[in-house]
C-alpha cells in the first residue's frame, strides 16, 4: 500500500484486502462459522485491522490525489499573452463626460443646472444682454439667422435672462448647452459647439468671489496645479469684464469670458445692481475637453468617427 505509485495501484491493494473478495473481508465473512471464543477474538482483531487499514488507505488516497492534481496543474497552462476577448461595451461622448464633470463641480457649490432654447429671439440673445442693434459689439458674435425670424443662440447667456425673469434672487445657476457661430470651420472653430454659462447673484457678490469660484472650478477640473488669472476684456453684458486664462503645462490659455453682470442686464431682468450684484461667466466645453483629452481638432467632436468616439 505504501508503495502504490498512483490511485490505481492503491485501489488494487485496497481490493486485495478490503474489496468484496478481499482477504480481510473473507475473514470477517467466515466469522459466523467459527466457535464463539475464537469468533470474539478474531472478530475483534479483524475489525481493528479493518479500521486501521481504512484510515491508512484514505490518507494514502488523499496524498496521491493531491500529488496527481499537482502533476496535472503543471501540465495545464494559458497563454496569458494571447489577447482578451473584447467586451461589448458602449461609449459616452467626450463632451457628455466633460459636461457631467462640470455639472458635478458646480452642483457641489450649490449651482442649479438650467437649460434654454437653442433657437432664440434677438431680444434674449442680444438686446437684453446690452448688445444694441447696429453696434460693432455685435460683430463679436457671428450669427446664424433663420427664416422663421429667430436666430441660433450664439452663447448660452440668454438663459440668464430667461431665468432671472422667472425667479427671485439670490441665484446660483449654470446653463450648459449647444451654441452656434457663423464662421469657417477649422481645427479650433466649429459652427456648433458646447458652452457652459454661469450666473451668481447675491448680496455683496464681488470680483474676488468670481475669482474664487473660477479657481475652484479649474482646479477641480484639471487638478490642483491649474493656476488662473483675470485679464481685462469686454463683453457688453458685464462690467467689469474679464477673460480668464489658465496656466497649463507652462502656457497661459484663454478659457472663457466673464465679469460682473452689467447693471443694464440686471435692469432688463427687473433687478437693481446695487442691491443684487452678481457675476456671470461662459466657458467653452469643447475647449475643456480638448485640453483634458489632448484633442487637437474640435471637428472630431461632431464628425461621428467611431475610431475617435470609442476611445472614451
Amino acid at each position, binding site marked *: 500500500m505504501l508503495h502504490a505509485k498512483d490511485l490505481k495501484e492503491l485501489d488494487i491493494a485496497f481490493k486485495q484486502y478490503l474489496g468484496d473478495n478481499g482477504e480481510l473481508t473473507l475473514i470477517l465473512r467466515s466469522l459466523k462459522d467459527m466457535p464463539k471464543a475464537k469468533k470474539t477474538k478474531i472478530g475483534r482483531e479483524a475489525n481493528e485491522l479493518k479500521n486501521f487499514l481504512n484510515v491508512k488507505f484514505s490518507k494514502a488516497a488523499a496524498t496521491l490525489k493531491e500529488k496527481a492534481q499537482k502533476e496535472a496543474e503543471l501540465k495545464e497552462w494559458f497563454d496569458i499573452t494571447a489577447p482578451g476577448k473584447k467586451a*461589448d461595451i*458602449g*461609449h*459616452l*461622448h467626450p*463632451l*457628455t463626460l466633460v459636461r*457631467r464633470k462640470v455639472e458635478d463641480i*458646480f452642483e457641489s457649490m*450649490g449651482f*442649479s*443646472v438650467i*437649460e434654454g432654447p*437653442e*433657437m432664440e429671439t434677438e431680444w434674449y440673445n442680444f438686446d437684453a444682454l446690452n448688445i444694441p442693434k*447696429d453696434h*460693432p*459689439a455685435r*460683430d*463679436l458674435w457671428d450669427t*446664424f*439667422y*433663420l*427664416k*422663421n*425670424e429667430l436666430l*441660433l443662440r450664439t452663447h448660452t447667456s440668454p438663459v440668464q435672462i430667461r431665468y432671472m425673469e422667472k425667479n427671485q434672487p*439670490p441665484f*446660483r445657476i449654470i446653463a450648459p448647452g*449647444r451654441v452656434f457661430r*457663423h*464662421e*469657417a*470651420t477649422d481645427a479650433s472653430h466649429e*459652427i*456648433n459647439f458646447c458652452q457652459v454659462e454661469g450666473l*451668481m447673484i447675491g448680496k*455683496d*457678490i*464681488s*470680483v*474676488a*468671489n468670481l*475669482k*474664487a469660484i473660477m479657481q*475652484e472650478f479649474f482646479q477641480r477640473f484639471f487638478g490642483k496645479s491649474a493656476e488662473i488669472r483675470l*485679464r*481685462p*476684456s*469686454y463683453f457688453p453684458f458685464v*462690467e*467689469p469684464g*474679464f477673460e480668464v486664462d489658465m496656466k497649463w503645462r507652462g502656457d497661459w490659455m484663454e478659457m472663457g469670458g466673464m465679469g460682473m453682470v452689467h447693471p443694464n442686464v440686471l435692469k432688463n431682468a427687473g433687478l437693481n*445692481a*446695487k442691491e443684487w*450684484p452678481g457675476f456671470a461667466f461662459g466657458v467653452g466645453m469643447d475647449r475643456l475637453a480638448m485640453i483634458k483629452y489632448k484633442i487637437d481638432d474640435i471637428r472630431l*467632436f461632431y464628425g*461621428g468617427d*467611431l475610431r475617435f*468616439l470609442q476611445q472614451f
Partner: protein
Amino acid sequence: MIFSYNLLQSFFSRKLPKPDKLAELLTLHSFEVSEVKKFKSDHVLDIDVLPNRAGDCFSHVGIAREIAAITNYVPAGHLPKGDKLPKNKENSAKDFISVDIRSQSYCPRYTARVIGNIKVGPSPKWLKDSLAACGLNSINNVVDVANYVMLETGQPLHVFDYEKLDSKKIIVRFAKEGEKITALDGQKFDLNPKILVIADGQKPVAIAGIKGGKEPEINEMTKTIVLESANFNPTIIRKGSRELNLKTDASVRFEHGIDVNLTESAINRAAYLIQKTALGKPFRDSVDFYPQKVYPKKIKLDLNYAESLLGAKIPEREIRNILMRLGFKVIGVRNQLSVEIPTFRLDISIPEDLIEEIGRIYGYDKILPVFPTASLIPPKINNDMLWENQIKDILKEAGFTETYNYSFQKELGSVEVENPTSQEFKYLRPSLIPNLLKNIEKNIKSFNQIKIFEVGKIFYDKTEKRMLAGVAAGQDFYQIKGAMDLLFDKLGIVKVWYDDYQATPAAFGEPRPVLAGREDSPKSLWKEKKSAEIKVGNIEVGFLGELKNELKIVAFDLDFEKLKTLAIEDQAYKTISKYPATIRDLAVLVPLTTKVEEVLNVIEAAGGSLVADVDLFDIYEGEGISDGQKNLAFHIIYQAQDRTLTSIEVYKIHQNIIKSLEENLTWQARK
C-alpha cells in the same frame, strides 16, 4: 491692430519697458497683445484693442495713455510738443471754401483747413518708416501725413486738391440714386441713398468716412489742398461700409465712434506736419461746423460700492492716482468722488465703468480670491438632465456609442437658415436620423457592427424638442427591440407595447411636418412592414424599425420629452420566490403571419397567476415545417410565491394552455 514701439516711445521721454515686457503689461492691464515682432529698427505690437475702446485706442496716443497709467510714466495723453502753427495773415480758409452739412445727426462735426504753397513729393524717411511699421504704404508727403496723424491720434483725415473741387464747396449729404464714384485705388462703386458722401458743387468726391474719390486726388501739380477732419455718425458709416462691402482704416475707426473734440487737434497736428514735410502754408482759421459742443461729463463714484464690487480694499489715494493717470479729473471728498470723464473716453458712462478702470490698472492679480457667502440653498434637481443622463447610461450599457452631430442638414427641413455656411447645412434638422445615417456610412468600412445614438434638439417651425434616436448596422430588429425593452424597463416605464406602423398621423394633436425622416413624410425612411410604433398605454413615444437603406439599418426614434414624463425613479423590489420553479417547453405551429404577441396573450390568459414567465426561445420556419407556417418554441415557467407546485398542478395548467391555443384552428401545439 498694429502699433509701432518707436512711435509709442515718442510720447515719453523716459525709456519704455522692453517690447516683450510692455506687451505683457498691456495684456494684463489693457488689451491682449497677440504678437510682438521686430521690424527693421523698430518693433511692432499686434494689439487686440477691445471694441469699446476703439474710440480712443485705435491710436498710438491712446495706447500711450494706457502705458502711462500702467507704468506711472509721465507725460500722457498729449501730442508731442511743437505743433503750434505760425500765424498766416494773408488768407483765411473761410474765404476759400464753404462747408454745407445737411444734418448734424450724420455729421456732428466737420473741420477743414486750407493749405497753400504745397510741394508734393516723397516723404521723409522717419515718416515712411512709421507708416511701414504699421503696414501702410507711402504715397507722398501730404497723404502720408494725413495717415500718420490718423495712426497717432485715431482721427481719420482726408486731403482734397482744392483746385479740383467744383464751386469750392464741400457738402455732406446722402448719395443720390444712380450716382457713382471711382475711389482712389480705381475701384468703382455704385452709390445709393443709404451711403453718406462728401460732394462738391456737382458730384460725390469721397465716400464719407470710408474712402476718398479719385477725382480730387492730389499729385505733383497740386498747389493748394483742403484738409478734412470730420466726425461721422458711427451707425451710418457702419451701414455704408456693409452696403459697399468695403472696410478701411477710416471706416473701422468711425464705426466704433470717435471723440468729436478730436477733429481740431488732429487737423492742426496734420497742418503743422505738412508745413514741415511739404512746405505748405496753412491759411488762417479753419472752417469748423460744430453746432453742438460735447463737454466732459461727470460720474459719481461711491468708493464703498467700488470696494464691495471688486471685493478688495484699494486705498483712496491709489484710486485717485489711477483715475488721474488715465486722464480723468477727480473732485469730491472722502468716499464720494465726482469724476470728470474726458470726451475721448466714449466707453465710460456708469460708475461700474470707472470701477473696471480702477480694478484693471490696480491689477486683478492683486485681488485675492474669496469664496462668496451665501445661504445654503441646495441646487434644484433638473429632471431633464437626470433622465438624459440615465438614458445615456442605459444605452451605453447596452453597447451603444454616443455621437454628437451637427444641428444642420442638407435635406429639406422646416426651418431654413437665412445665411448658411454651406449647402450641406441649409436646414435645421427636423430629425436626428439623417445625420446618424451619415455616421453609419462613414464608419461602415471600419466596423461590421455599429450601434450609435444621439440625444439632441430637432426643429420645426418655431419650436424645438429633444429627441433620442439611434441606428444600428449588423444588428437585427429584435436585438434593437431588446435594447428598447431594456431602456423602458430601466426607466421604470411599464405598459410599453409595439403597434403596427401607420403612415398616417397619429391623433395626438402634435404638428406633423412633411419632412424627411418623419413618419408621415412622403420620403419616409421607415420600411412600413418592418417597423413599429412604440406606445406606452395610448401614448405614442416613438418608432422602431428597419430603414429603407441597403445597409439594413435598424433605427429607433423616441420623443425625449414624453419619455421624461413617463419615467419613474422609484423601483419596487419584486419578491424572489423561495419555492422552486418548474419549466415546461411548448412548441406551437402557427401561420407565418401570426404575431408572437397573439400567442403570448393566449398563454398568459390561460396560464393565470402561476405562470411566472413565458420565454420565447426560438422561431423556426423552413425545412421540416410546411410552407406558410412557423414554429414558435416557448419555455413556460411555473412558480408560486407560497408553495412548491405539484407536478399534477403544473400538468393541469399546461394542458389548459394547450387547449386554449388549439381553440384557434390554425394553431397546433406540438406536445
